[in-house]
């Protein structure tokens, strides 16, 4: 029974990807045919060889990495305080942090665009990355603060008493204790940034082209093979990253569980 469910789950997850693949690697797939009759890689090769596709992917990955690092740096101190301390105004802090997920991104994007135009960040990768932090930060803080809530500061006190300085404690104890949650938080930030369309369009203003932007313009163009190809490229990095980290996360999870 368990295996049937598992197989079903895999099928549901993989089916859309298979459909994309079928569209991307075939020509002239018409209604009554259950499967494409003519297979070809020409659309795929065309898309891969298109410099716009590659540069948009490179830009997207670069921005997503930048956003991941920046939101981790911003989230760690906030998450620590929210996870470990009780203080007046804690609820308010949470509300303010989650506000960007409630307010429509269009409202933020438009306002931010005007500000970024004025200070020269509009149309730059830095500007887009900074804008992406708005939707990623709530998720990274949330993930890390629940990790801190389970974190026992006595581990740090131990390290302190044994002679470690604050930097050594942070790098060799705190970060390593939190590794699984850090990976998850980074993943969140990366994926949210990677799939961000609206903020990239508004702040990038046509100068910063990421894959979602290309995908949307292809979608309005209406060639199913191109759309399917770009979609496959769009899901590739997240799938790879998750597949890679899932193993690591499991190992870490087991280690942490052993301790308790």
């Amino acid at each position, binding site marked *: 029974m368990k295996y049937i469910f598992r197989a079903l789950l895999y099928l549901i997850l993989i089916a859309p990807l298979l459909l994309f693949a079928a569209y991307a690697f075939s020509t002239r797939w018409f209604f009554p045919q259950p499967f494409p009759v003519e297979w070809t890689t020409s659309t795929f090769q065309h898309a891969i060889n298109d410099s716009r596709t590659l540069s948009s992917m490179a830009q997207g990955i670069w921005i997503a990495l930048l956003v991941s690092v920046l939101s981790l740096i911003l989230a760690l101190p906030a998450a620590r305080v929210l996870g470990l301390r009780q203080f007046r105004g804690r609820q308010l802090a949470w509300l303010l942090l989650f506000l960007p997920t409630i307010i429509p991104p269009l409202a933020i994007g438009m306002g931010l665009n005007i500000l970024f135009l004025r200070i020269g960040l509009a149309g730059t990768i830095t500007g887009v990355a900074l804008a992406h932090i708005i939707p990623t930060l709530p998720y990274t803080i949330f993930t890390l603060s629940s990790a801190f809530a389970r974190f*026992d500061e*006595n*581990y740090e*006190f*131990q*390290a*302190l*008493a*044994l*002679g*470690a*300085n604050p930097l*050594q404690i942070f790098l*060799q*104890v705190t970060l*390593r*204790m939190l*590794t699984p949650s850090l990976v998850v938080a980074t993943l969140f930030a990366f994926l949210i940034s990677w799939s961000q369309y609206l903020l990239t369009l508004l702040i990038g203003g046509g100068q910063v082209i990421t894959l979602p932007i290309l995908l949307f313009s292809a979608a309005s163009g209406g060639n199913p093979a191109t759309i399917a190809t770009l979609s496959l490229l769009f899901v590739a990095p997240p799938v790879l990253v998750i597949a890679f980290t899932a193993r690591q996360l499991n190992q870490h999870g087991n*280690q*942490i569980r*052993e*301790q308790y």
Partner: protein
Amino acid sequence: MTTINILSLSKTYPNSTAPVLKDFSLSIHDGEMVALLGPSGSGKSTLLKLITGIERPDSGDIQFDGSTILNIDPNKRGAVLMFQKSYLFPFLNVEENIGFGLKVQGMSSESIRAEVKRMLNLIGLPGIEKRKPGQLSGGEGQRVALARALVTNPKLLLLDEPLSSLDTSVRMNLQEAIRSIQRELGVTTIFVTHDLGEAMAMSDRMALLLNGEIVALDNPEALFHRPRSLAAAKFMGVSTFLDGDQLTVKNEACSSSEKIFAIRPEHIRVQKDGCENSMQGVVSDCVFRGEYVEYQVAVNGTSVRARMTMPAPMFPHGEQVYVNFPKEHLFEVEN
């Protein structure tokens, strides 16, 4: 190696009015093990936090070998901690855990390996270098935590109820192990506990703490037999206190009728016939405990707890008896 002087230390936490420590002073000799015994909230753990530097005192001073440590960073004080939980780093194996303190201080990895090996022999667990903390039993974990603390050659070892999460047999074992290792290395030690037996078995001197103040400080034997104050006596398990005028025959020490006298439960005799210094009462409870019998006798509206070693008479509930306070065992306590 180190003499510790704690001089009129005071600490009040920001959100409370009552001080956790009031004008607290304590001197600990080189290589001595002092037990701090007190109920929770008596300031024991706060004192450890102040010594390690996790918290700062409001006033007072802490000196190692005569010089203050308050302006030294916590990681350079040389005061190591061991808690109730081992707090071994779960991502490091036993060797890396024990070597942690030496590694952050920049010792070479060969020297670390040798030191770790020496410590593992000392704690009686040779050859477990590559095990992960999750594969250790509670007692083994605490031994490794002790090794991790002592390998740095600390000036002061602070033990914060290190045995209270362990089974009785493991606990007795570790009491002896900690005591002998502490003596062998001659490391000055403060041992926090709420277990009287443990404090007596392990320490050179005991400090009894109540509401941030020391109510008594002496070696375990003296404190056990002749606590000087009412509070100290209660700590040491004495529950029977008598006004001087209740006694018919007094010993030399018991001269005034205004003073309070105490007697340990195992010195009180419960018997059928009255004699000097006895009171009539009714047995309300009589429990056979194997090595001794424990009695509760209602005398003049208060309950007197007594213990008699075997062979001892058993009395049924409601029996009329006399409780006798032998004069040689009565001692005076200050209120």
